[in-house]
């Protein structure tokens, strides 16, 4: 520190001049900045800083508000850059404009503040051959156009990595472009409606207030209003007419029907009044335009809320890298760079530290820590060693891994998570369907009431009929009824995904909020599921190694935690044939001509009176191994509860939920766990059928059961419970059957999930209550002729806007258990 006087001038960024990390003792990487020598921590930072300063963009260092990442990561990707020049790789993300003009969508990593955007824009735009560059601050996405005869894409990417950022191609084929187009159209419709509304209101206000207005001026104003309202009705309100037409074609009464009817009637009536002169009746142009504008504004807000929920999906999609290092002649170490699209199942890939795994697979060489944070929300890296499964999209952090590819593309876990999220967001939840049905009834009722009121008024005063009918149609607000549920649900789903609880079914939130009983599986749910063999007791004079090898051979194909534990530590198990798995009981198979059975004592010994394990103490599960002659060994397995299990369960109990523990394990182990975690209701030795029967009996008592579990043997009971939550680490079958998936394996998210689900339910009820209450007051008032069209417009629009704003409160939901974790995350996002 003594030899770096320059650092004294930059107290906020002590340490390395570029990245802020501590400078190692004896490191000599000086940087000249504003005639002073600064110290960098490594050669990477030195090179980056020098590049930035030399190209005249040193202002970055005075403007930045957050520190960048160390550029090491960028260097590992450098070798792959040349690949991006291949036409077949460019196909998916590069648009060819003319002969040599290309445009590509890139994602920039390591962007932490606005200064980074400025720096990248300046730097890329300064390259010869680059025609234009635009970087979107909100999405961190860059759009670059260049002349391919003067510069190659790899040179642009390299220039970006020279200043310490990573640019990689973004495949715009997905939702992004669609959303952008939709949003653009929505903005245009909104703009037209907004302008129309403002100007029509300008003409309308004098007619309400002025007393000395001549008829010709009044007529001129109606004509001007008419001209302005035509584009609003024809262009801005087009989606409502389209929706209404679609509803009618399907012989249904949706939200759009009365909206379209109201807009249409009010508009046509106003047109009639305008054409037939000043005495024919009032004009409603102001109501029509305002009505359209506020409805569109509500929909626009809702679209953005939905987008925020969808952002989680998109983040996941871009995790898989575009290129990877293949080892074609494994175990020989010769490398080649290939695009991920060209990988095949069975290929070996080398994943260096700092690289992202391209596919699901199994580790065949190396020992490292892998971060699955993007997939699960779990921030701590997971250690991976020989034979461990790794998931595509996770980041290798410690040392090189050689991975044999097992699943690619659409088969990977990442792809299935994305599919589940997509499904949840496209599915209409039960309460939403109910609201739709209620709204359809409401609309039908509304049309009947309107007709009746119209007939009554025809008898009293025929000149008022049209206006009262329009007033009723305008003032009632089925759109608030329609917005009430989806707005709340999308906001809540997005919030939950960010907390690590993935909703895969539309009805999940609603049912979770009403749940009265929570049933837990033990292994892998309340405990880590990483069982380990604590004791081996060989019988009949067998050797410990021999029985361990037999057990490992039988369990070689199973995902069950017990199987994993029995496999660990056995290097070369013999192979077993005719393996038959009986869920909840055990496995049978033939090894070297002899039949072996492993599992519960009753299963292994094939008897109704199972032999007793050698020792009955708490916390251990005993697994028996037998051949045709009888038992040959006992294995004692133990597991530890998750760190947050006790606190989370206590929180759930305080919410008034009854907790149950069902496990296929032995009585002692289950009792031990139940006592540790404070669960009064526990059942040991439960088979999948027993678990299902237990859940069904609870349901017959009128309880609403939420099942939390993992593993294949939980699939039937997960499907049987009203709402099911699977642990994200569990077998994939369980996830497909589950309504929600706990991605990080943190039980604490469950309590948050229940709290948020209840809050969502409350907000939905508030919204529906408001929408109904409003109509109960508004319809009679309008029917009696007390509501002017002007008031009707304001009333109906503000009621729908209020509903959406109320729903958006859910996005601020503070997680009780994660506040500390959320605060610990880098708070770089300015403008929040």
């Amino acid at each position, binding site marked *: 520190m003594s030899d770096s006087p320059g650092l004294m001038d930059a107290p906020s960024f002590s340490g390395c001049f570029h990245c802020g990390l501590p400078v190692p003792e004896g490191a000599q990487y000086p940087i000249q900045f504003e005639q002073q020598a600064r110290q960098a921590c490594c050669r990477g930072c030195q090179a980056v800083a020098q590049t930035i300063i030399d190209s005249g963009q040193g202002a970055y260092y005075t403007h930045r508000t957050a520190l960048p990442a160390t550029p090491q990561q960028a260097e590992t990707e450098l070798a792959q850059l040349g690949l991006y020049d291949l036409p077949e790789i460019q196909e998916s993300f590069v648009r060819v404009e003319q002969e040599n003009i290309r445009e590509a969508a890139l994602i920039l990593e390591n962007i932490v*503040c606005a200064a980074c955007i400025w720096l990248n824009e300046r730097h890329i735009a300064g390259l010869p051959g680059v025609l234009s560059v635009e970087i979107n601050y*909100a999405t961190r996405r860059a759009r670059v156009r260049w002349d391919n005869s003067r510069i190659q894409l790899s040179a642009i990417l390299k220039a970006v990595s020279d200043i310490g950022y990573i640019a990689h191609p973004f495949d715009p084929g997905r939702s992004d472009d669609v959303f952008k187009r939709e949003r653009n159209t929505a903005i*245009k419709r909104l*703009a037209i409606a907004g302008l129309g509304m403002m*100007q029509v209101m300008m003409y309308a206000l004098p007619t309400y207030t002025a007393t000395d207005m001549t008829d010709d001026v009044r007529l001129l104003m109606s004509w001007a209003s008419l001209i302005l309202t035509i584009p609003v009705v024809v262009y801005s309100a087009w989606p409502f007419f389209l929706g209404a037409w679609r509803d009618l074609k399907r012989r249904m009464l949706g939200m759009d029907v009365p909206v379209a009817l109201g807009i249409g009637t009010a508009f046509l009536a106003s047109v009639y009044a305008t054409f037939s002169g000043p005495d024919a009746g009032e004009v409603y142009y102001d109501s029509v335009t305002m009505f359209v504008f506020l409805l569109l504004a509500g929909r626009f807000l809702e679209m953005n809320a939905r987008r925020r929920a969808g952002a989680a999906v998109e983040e996941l999609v871009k995790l898989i890298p575009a290129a990877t290092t293949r080892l074609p002649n494994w175990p020989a170490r010769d490398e080649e760079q290939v695009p991920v699209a060209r990988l095949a199942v069975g290929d070996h890939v080398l994943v260096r530290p700092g690289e992202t795994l391209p596919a699901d697979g199994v580790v065949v060489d190396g020992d490292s820590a892998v971060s699955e944070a993007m997939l699960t929300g779990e921030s701590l890296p997971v250690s991976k060693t020989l034979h461990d499964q790794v998931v595509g999209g996770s980041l290798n952090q410690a040392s090189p891994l050689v991975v044999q590819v097992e699943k690619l593309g659409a088969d990977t876990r990442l792809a299935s998570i994305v599919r589940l999220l997509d499904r949840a967001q496209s599915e209409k939840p039960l309460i939403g369907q109910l609201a739709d049905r209620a709204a359809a009834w409401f609309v039908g009722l509304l049309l009947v009431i309107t007709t009746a009121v119209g007939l009554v008024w025809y008898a009293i005063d025929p000149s008022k009929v049209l206006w009262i009918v329009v007033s009723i149609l305008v003032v009632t607000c089925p759109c608030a009824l329609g917005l009430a549920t989806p707005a709340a649900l999308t906001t809540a789903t997005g919030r939950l995904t960010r907390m690590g609880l993935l909703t895969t079914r539309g009805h999940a939130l609603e049912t979770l909020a009403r749940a009265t009983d929570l049933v837990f599986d033990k292994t892998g749910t309340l405990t880590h599921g990483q069982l380990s063999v604590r004791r081996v007791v060989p019988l009949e004079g067998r050797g410990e190694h021999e029985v361990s090898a037999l057990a490992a051979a039988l369990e070689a194909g199973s995902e069950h935690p017990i199987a994993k534990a029995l496999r660990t530590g056995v290097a070369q198990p013999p192979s077993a044939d005719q393996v038959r798995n009986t869920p909840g009981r055990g496995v049978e198979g033939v090894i070297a001509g002899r039949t072996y059975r492993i599992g519960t004592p009753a299963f292994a010994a094939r008897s109704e009176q199972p032999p007793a394990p050698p020792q009955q103490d708490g916390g251990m599960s005993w697994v028996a191994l037998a051949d045709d002659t009888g038992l040959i060994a006992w294995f004692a397995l133990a597991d530890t509860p998750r760190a947050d299990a006790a606190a989370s369960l206590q929180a759930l109990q305080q919410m008034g939920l009854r907790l149950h523990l069902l496990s296929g394990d032995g009585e002692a182990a289950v009792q031990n766990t139940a006592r540790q975690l404070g669960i009064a209701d526990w059942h040991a030795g439960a088979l999948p059928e027993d678990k299902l029967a237990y859940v069904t009996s609870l349901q017959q008592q009128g309880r609403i059961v939420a099942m939390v579990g993992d593993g294949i043997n939980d699939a039937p009971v997960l499907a049987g419970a009203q709402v099911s939550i699977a642990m994200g680490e569990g077998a994939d079958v369980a996830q497909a059957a589950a309504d929600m998936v706990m991605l990080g394996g943190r039980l604490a998210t469950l309590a948050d999930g229940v709290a948020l689900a209840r809050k969502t339910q409350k907000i939905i009820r508030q919204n529906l209550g408001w929408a109904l209450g409003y109509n109960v007051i508004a319809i009679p008032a309008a029917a009696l002729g007390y509501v002017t069209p002007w008031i009707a417009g304001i009333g109906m629009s503000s009621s729908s806007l209020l509903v959406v704003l109320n729903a958006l409160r859910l996005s601020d939901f503070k997680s009780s258990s994660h506040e500390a974790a959320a605060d610990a995350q880098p708070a770089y996002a300015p403008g929040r």
Partner: protein
Amino acid sequence: MDILLLLIPLSLVLVGVIAWIMLWAARSGQFDDLEGPAHSIVMDDDSPPKTDDRPPP
């Protein structure tokens, strides 16, 4: 009051012009990023590359 006969048509023309500008702005991507420009306005790039006052290597 007669002035209104001129002003009202004039306001219509104005609205038309504004609407055209809005549509053009939406089409050319002015609304694509509503966050970044707020930050980029404080970053001025009027400091030229300091190639000549840098000490020779």
